């Protein structure tokens, strides 16, 4: 297992380098411009100066290599410095700066991580927690009314666009009923029970929208996986041993069914870090997803490049995690 993991990590290096190049080309060649959002009253000479100050005049290759060096050498050094108070990074080690805010992209990401993790992460966890029992019961009682309703709800979950459900929830619960805030307060800090309650209230709607979507998908996987296992011979063996249905289903079948589902869940984790572009926009959560979309709209190449590359790393990493998990959970699988 260890050698397998190491080998996969080694393969990941060239893959990721190639991905970083592709992302760089895509992002750089995109016809957006960091000065596009400036008022038209700013004349074009000034815009040209601004672009020059951002280093846009350098050749593509130079910019790519600089970014690589910044990402893989300078940034880690700076982060270590920040974390441990060392001074490994010298002054000429320019960090990756966002063109829009002129601040280090890493800082922006660190700043946005909490709300994204809170909202998207919670919704993912809740989604999974809802999905599993629904999937289990749907499979066990295949074609029962519960299964039918569960199927309908989960399908509805991913067939309605989140920009629609989000606005709908806001109109109902913020405007009409006034129960929850329509704008997420990213500065809110949980210090006591009351403030925790405030946090819960502002999270309910975005979490609900996303959790429904996540639960919909995972419950389908869970159901399919349970169905696969319910007809296996070992289930008959378990019944022949006189075990109760609960033990048969929740111990024997579930344990086997969880193997593929756990990997699916692991594969979904990068999307948590990626944020939810539309939902964040609708509820003003201003997390990673909103950072990305604003950066794209603002032609902020370093931010887009860095963010998308981090997503790529996470995707590759969690692909590996999923495979390793599979190996750990299923004693039959041995990687070498």
């Amino acid at each position, binding site marked *: 297992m260890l050698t397998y993991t190491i080998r996969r990590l080694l393969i990941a290096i060239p893959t990721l380098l190639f991905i970083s190049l592709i992302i760089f080309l895509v992002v750089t*060649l995109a*016809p*957006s*411009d*960091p*000065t*596009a*959002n*400036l*008022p*038209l*009253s*700013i*004349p*074009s*000479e*000034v*815009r*040209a*100066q*601004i*672009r*020059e*100050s*951002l280093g846009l005049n350098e050749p593509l290759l130079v910019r790519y290599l600089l970014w690589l060096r910044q990402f893989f050498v300078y940034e880690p050094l700076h982060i270590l410095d920040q974390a441990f108070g060392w001074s490994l990074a010298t002054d000429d080690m*320019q960090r990756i*700066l*966002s063109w*829009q*805010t*002129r*601040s*280090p992209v890493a*800082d*922006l990401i660190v*700043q*946005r991580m909490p709300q994204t993790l809170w909202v998207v992460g919670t919704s993912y966890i809740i989604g999974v927690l809802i999905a599993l029992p629904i999937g289990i019961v749907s499979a066990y009682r295949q074609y029962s009314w519960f299964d039918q309703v569960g199927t309908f709800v989960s399908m509805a979950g991913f067939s309605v666009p989140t920009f629609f459900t989000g606005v709908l929830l*806001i109109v109902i619960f*913020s*405007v009409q009923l*006034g129960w929850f*805030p*329509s*704008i997420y*307060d*990213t*500065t809110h800090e949980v210090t006591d029970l009351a403030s925790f309650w405030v946090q819960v209230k502002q999270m309910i709607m975005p979490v609900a929208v996303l959790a429904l979507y996540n639960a919909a998908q995972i419950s389908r996987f869970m159901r399919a996986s349970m169905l696969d296992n319910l007809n296996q011979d070992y289930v008959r063996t378990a019944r022949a041993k006189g075990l109760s249905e609960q033990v048969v289903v929740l111990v024997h079948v579930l344990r086997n069914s969880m193997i593929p589902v756990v990997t699916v869940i692991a594969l979904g984790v990068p999307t948590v870090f990626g944020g939810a572009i539309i939902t964040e*926009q*609708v509820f*003003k959560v*201003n997390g990673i997803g*909103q*950072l990305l979309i*604003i950066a*794209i*709209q*603002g*032609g902020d190449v370093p931010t887009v490049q860095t963010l998308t590359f981090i997503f790529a790393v996470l995707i590759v990493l969690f692909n590996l995690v999923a495979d390793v998990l599979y190996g750990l959970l299923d004693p039959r699988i041995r990687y070498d």
Partner: protein
Amino acid sequence: MKLRHALLGAAATLAFAPAAMAERGSDGQVNIIYWQAPSTMNPYLSGGTKDLEAASLVLEPLARYDQDGNMVPWLAETIPTVENGGVTEDLTSITWKLKPGLKWADGSPVTSADVKFSWEYCTAEGGGCAQSEKYNDVVDVETPDELTVIVRFGVAKPFPYGPFVGAQAPVIQAAQFAECLGAKAPECTDANFKPQGTGPFTVVDFRPNDVIQLEANPNYRDPEKPAFASVLFKGGGDATAAGRSVLETSEFDYAWNLQLAPDVLANMVSAGNGKIVSGFGTLVERILINMTDPSPELGDRRSTVDTPHPFLTDMAVRQALSMAIDRELLVEIGYGDAGRPTCNVLPAPEIYKSTANDGCLVQDIERAKALLDEAGWVPGPDGVRAKDGVRLSLLYQTSTNAVRQDFQALIKQWWEEIGVETELRNIDASVFFGGDPGSPDTFQKFYADVEMYANNFDGTDPESYMANWLCKEIPSPETQWQGNNINRYCSEAYDALVAEMAVTGALEERAELAKAMNDMLMQEYVILPLVDRGRVSAHSNTLGGVVLNTWDSELWNVADWYRIE
């Protein structure tokens, strides 16, 4: 309007300012929402309105404009003029006097050195200062004493109020930014996010593109202001949500620039939690007519002066296009109270406003048809007019935006009624307004027959704005498509007027020249102005003191805001 007059007006407004004279910080927190989130607090590093206005809570200029476009002294004692001797007769230098006793938020005194530094900062090599145009022609800034600043220009400046005036060019603290000149500017993240200022508030926490927390400046010059102890400045989302949060759910006190359909806005107001405020500036939604040929077959030469447009060079066609448009209806549908039909590309200030073209306000489809008939454009079997094998077929582009798309649909229908085939295209704003020479979709490249967007100018002086239509401003591949004459309109007579204005100092004469230029553009129908767009913002019923200002930052008088119980 004479400047002296303007001064009086400003004083009058200030006198009417809120009577709730409580002590500083007694009114708790005010929540402001901007649906575009500020990405920096340094206005020199970003020209975006959202950034400028956020920064205006902290940073202040020597003088700024009030809600009527009058200049009012801010950090300066008075507005220097030729009359009061502040501006030299040859119009090459202007002398500002700082108010005595001004302090930065950290308690250190504000001196003329800070003012001079602000100029140095913006003009330093490699800094990419977004406001460097404000400092055009400045050759030197002298600081004879702590409170006096003399700005010297290389040429005669009939309008010397560029540097240090308005939200675009405030004074920054020399001590804080000393190490941030030129290429080092972006590295001073802390300074850029938390600049020391003289304004009523000071930054506690800045989260780029998200939220800003500010608190009252302890060293603000008026000891009773601001009434609010803190400001929460939230950014992001969309105009609908911002309006909703003020007008319907009362989560916020002030929402900026609610570009919404009139009935949507009216519905929100009907909830009764707040009201909208609107004001008009110089922003005009217009259709630009391409005088050059954008057809792709021309390769490199498309949309350049080498290739005149096959039919838009015919004035009859341009005029007919204009006549077919019902500007009243456009306003009604797209802007409601936040817009008014206009026939001028220079709609304000009052003194510059021409009345010569008001005929355009009435839609006249029949006359437009007749005009085209006369010019020899006859309808073909498909209803599209043609002459000598040239069909009146247009590509009409604009940026992606719900109101603009409605306008496109309406105008398309009108134009098709007069026999002009219209194809619509909308382009993402970041691409359309982006200057990327590699993109075919920028408004500057103008690879379309007509395009629509809005433009205005900073402050109240139209000189540089009207200079946009100089022949030499025509974008071309040679200039990397930079240049402001998007229409590719070129007229010697127009160029002469621009040159004349550059050396004319008297306000009335300048106004006449500007009007003449405006009328020239209008009567040649190279620009079809549609709507004079106002600014609509909303505030809650509990927020007092809001005076909407379209000539400067909307938050210009935030120090005077207070809570109505």
